[in-house]
């Protein structure tokens, strides 16, 4: 983040920005100039508090909202894996169990990390919701009933949660652009979720007699295919078939043999907060 650049941009739409900043025009300009010398972590906080004074709404408010949204998703994933690992006879011992122990560890670490980050920014971490992993809105008898007794179903839900997590973080990156530290952390969580998604897909690809496996799942998403035998998860994959990036058609680009599958696989698409909340709503009581 270039602090002077940010302030200059604000000044374009609000020429009074420096006056609003409590009349401390010179102090602000000095801060901007000295931005590179101030401890990196302190800069977003300093800017946030300045802007919150100027506009009466905390600039960090949006960031805290995004982090609480992410925290909700991480609570969902962490509790899903914690419950799965505690369900006797669900996850086969050996490679599969070790993989889900690794994934669960990361999701629980993400919960702790996000809670700490929110607190550090002066926000209040949201409380962990009560979850219904049958997608029954609290009835415990939703369409995914038996998810902790049926490994095939557990894997399908896991894949969907991981892919959705990737696309959800991606959709929020732009809302974190004003804070280098938070954006970096979010990106670093985002790619871990993608590693998880790839591995769960790999596990499923090796289970060709699994009744919920459709076709051959690959570590990446092809078109809008979930490779899961239910339409319930389709909202997480709709839009993934996109092959045009920034106005550039990727299929056959510059004469290369890139087909629609390659073009869709090569770019993961974002999901908006509203889309994600609709997807996870049946799981939250």
């Amino acid at each position, binding site marked *: 983040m*270039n602090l002077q650049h940010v302030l200059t941009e604000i000044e374009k739409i609000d020429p009074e920005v420096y006056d609003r900043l409590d009349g401390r025009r010179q102090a602000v300009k000095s801060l901007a100039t000295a*931005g*590179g010398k101030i401890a*990196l972590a302190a800069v977003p906080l300093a800017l946030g508090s300045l802007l919150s004074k100027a506009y009466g709404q905390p600039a960090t408010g949006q960031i805290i909202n995004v982090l609480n949204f992410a925290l909700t998703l991480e609570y969902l994933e962490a509790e899903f894996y914690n419950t799965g690992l505690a369900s006797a006879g669900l996850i086969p011992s050996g*490679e599969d169990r070790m*993989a889900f122990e*690794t994934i669960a*560890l*990361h*999701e*629980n*670490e*993400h919960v*702790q*990390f996000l809670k700490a980050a929110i607190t550090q920014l002066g926000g209040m971490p949201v409380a962990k919701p009560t979850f219904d992993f049958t997608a029954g809105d609290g009835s415990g008898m939703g369409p995914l009933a038996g998810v902790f007794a049926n490994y095939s179903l557990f894997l399908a839900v896991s894949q969907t949660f991981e892919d959705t997590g*990737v696309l959800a973080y*991606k959709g929020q*990156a*732009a809302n974190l*652009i004003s804070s*280098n*530290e938070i*954006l*970096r*952390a979010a*990106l*670093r*969580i*985002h*790619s*871990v*979720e*993608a*590693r*998880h*998604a*790839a*591995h769960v897909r*790999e596990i499923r690809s090796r289970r060709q007699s699994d009744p919920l496996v459709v076709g051959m799942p*690959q*570590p*990446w998403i092809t078109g809008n295919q979930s490779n899961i035998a239910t339409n319930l998860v389709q909202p997480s994959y709709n839009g993934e078939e996109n092959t045009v*990036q*920034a*106005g*550039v058609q*990727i299929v056959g*680009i*510059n*004469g*290369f*043999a*890139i087909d629609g599958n*390659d*073009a869709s*696989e*090569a*770019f*993961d698409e*974002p999901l908006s907060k509203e889309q994600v909340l609709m997807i996870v709503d049946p799981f939250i009581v």
Partner: protein
Amino acid sequence: MAEQKLPDVGPDTSPETRHLSRRKFFTYAGLSAVTAATLAACQKDLRGGQPSAPYAQDDPHNKPANTVNLGSGDIGILNYAYALEQLEAAFYIRVTSSLYAGATSKEKMYLEDIRDHEIAHREFFKTALGKKAIGPLLFDFSSINFSSRASVLGTAKAFEDLGVSAYNGAGELIQNADYLLLAGKIVSVEARHAAAIRDLLNYGSFADATVVDNNGLDVYRKPAEVLSIAGTYIETKIIANNLPTS
């Protein structure tokens, strides 16, 4: 065209700047003893793909350069990503042009898919950057044994993990939210590649403690560190000292 959307802050390749930069630029050349004759002989191999001659040899803009300047601002970061995608694409094109003996059908399928994804990324940046794009880089893959599964997959793992760390470290250097989203769309696919290759090499190592820390965060690296590591495989000198630092 996306080209028109890009702000006018492309790489400065004026003779004056090149002269000034020469004294202070980051030199990331790998082995310098490769002769021009060897390079010429290898060029098709190093830059190859389908179609076989994507860069017209008589177009000076498309000739492999001895030196490229990534430029500054967002364009600099996009050129930085373009350079890394060129490296990955060239590597997988070489890998799949004569795959090591004994590759499983899954290995062949994944390596060919990844090759196509990296070509898509490379050509996307080239097209989106338009006239602001750096030229094609020359690569030096002499340290890789392409007939060895361990060498090929080990290098692929290193490249994918490096790519993930590069995008994770570059996001905060981008000013434009649209470009940030594009980088985000690509980095998760690089992470999927990294996990896939890691699982081929050592099943279950998709997100092990060598890449994920005890906060559950993946590796990130600044451009200078990434280019220093990648420099082993890049013959072209890359001037990166105008990239944003925050």
